[in-house]
């Protein structure tokens, strides 16, 4: 396992694999998002209580999943960056942060648009919503740390320390609906007894989830590639100046 990781820590090899995946990830993103949106918006039935507003869920729930998964991924790769000093690990956490922040923001906005007709308020201060808001602030703080250091390797370490401390928020978000009596409904897809929702809704939801993941992979590859090339460009310029 460790040997495998070291193999992928080489930026050139990473770029080669990423470039091979990239066209496929674009295709899967388009296909999955189109199918998911079509199934979610036109095929799946309207809810007997919520009516058509239930369709917001197909955008909202996968965004919230992604918000948490991206942060977890950043925490893991920051830890790898701190422990094994992988050059790609730091870059990948940096590249993932703005994407994760966008997913968090999307989840918050769609959630509040759904909350207005359902709960009668755009925002309620329950545990799930508040912890998601904290997650957004953590993403913003993380990006601010990257922006405030001139030395990139120092910025990487400082940001990694921050992201690892903030990782404590992830289980809090996940279990907030079980620990507190929240207005937000408890988990209904990933439960111990299997999914609690009907397949006509579950299928488009899962397709959307996969589509979001593949969207993330696509943007992520673009961003990491930009980071690696940018770093090489800087090295070239420094070398040129030295000659």
């Amino acid at each position, binding site marked *: 396992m460790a040997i495998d990781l070291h193999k992928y820590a080489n930026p050139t090899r990473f770029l080669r694999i990423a470039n091979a995946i990239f066209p496929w990830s674009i295709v899967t993103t388009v296909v999955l998002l189109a199918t998911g949106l079509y199934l979610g918006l036109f095929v799946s039935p309207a809810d007997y209580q919520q009516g058509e507003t239930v369709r917001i869920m197909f955008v909202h729930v996968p965004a919230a999943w992604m918000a948490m998964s991206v942060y977890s991924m950043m925490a893991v790769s920051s830890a790898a960056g701190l422990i094994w000093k992988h050059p790609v690990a730091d870059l990948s956490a940096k590249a993932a942060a703005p994407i994760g922040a966008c997913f968090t923001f999307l989840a918050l906005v769609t959630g509040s648009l759904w909350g207005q007709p359902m709960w009668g308020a755009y925002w309620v201060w329950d545990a799930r919503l*508040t912890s998601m808001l*904290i997650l957004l602030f953590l993403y913003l703080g993380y990006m601010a740390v990257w922006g405030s250091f001139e030395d990139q390797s120092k910025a990487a370490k400082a940001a990694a*320390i921050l992201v690892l*401390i903030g990782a404590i928020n992830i289980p809090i978000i996940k279990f907030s609906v079980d620990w507190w009596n929240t207005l937000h409904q408890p988990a209904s897809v990933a439960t111990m007894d299997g999914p609690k929702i009907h397949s006509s809704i579950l299928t488009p939801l899962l397709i959307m989830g996969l589509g979001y993941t593949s969207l993330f992979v696509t943007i992520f590859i673009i961003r990491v590639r930009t980071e690696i090339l940018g770093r090489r460009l800087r090295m070239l310029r420094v070398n040129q100046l030295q000659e």
Partner: protein
Amino acid sequence: MRSFLALLKRDMLLAYRQGSALTMTLSFFVIAVTLFPLGVGPELNVLARIGPGVLWVGALLACLLTLDRIFQADFEDGTLEQLMLGPLSIEFIVLTKIIAHWVMSVLPLIAITPILAISLNVHADGIWAMIFSLLIGSPVLSLIGAVGAALTVAMRRGGVLLSLLVLPLYIPVLIFGVASVEAAVALMPMAPHLMLLGGLSLGALVVCPFAAAAALRLAVE
């Protein structure tokens, strides 16, 4: 252990001799809390309702103002580097700074909280709960704050970034702190909230010195 105590004594003495910083923090706390009755209006039941929250938020912000002093002076004049060369490991150096910060900057805030609570018409039970919850929960403020201070110590204008980093992590303490006071006012058991606060403090005590030490190594190297 002896060097730990000596360092602790030095830090406390330094903070004590620079008394003006302490008075300024206390004045900020008092003024910030005073603004609320003026802003919200002087109805006593409204004040009693929002009092615990106002006091906790005020204490949080006042504490935030003092955070940059934890490492700043020692970092700037090079003392920190000398200390790191010494026999004491960085984690313990950080711990002495945190203890000194809590005793010299946070305890005074807790000491004047009852007076402010009375002025906000908080119920007598609530005042006791307020003191207990602050005593148990406020170490988290110093501990997490030290990590933020260590991360931003090498920056020229780290103050704003410091609050962006630290305040989101303060939110759990705020929630449980205010919840314990409100439970006490409503004559409900406040022990669960206090235990959660204690858990937060102990958890932060384990994690934060290491994180702050890692951040300091980064700042000094």
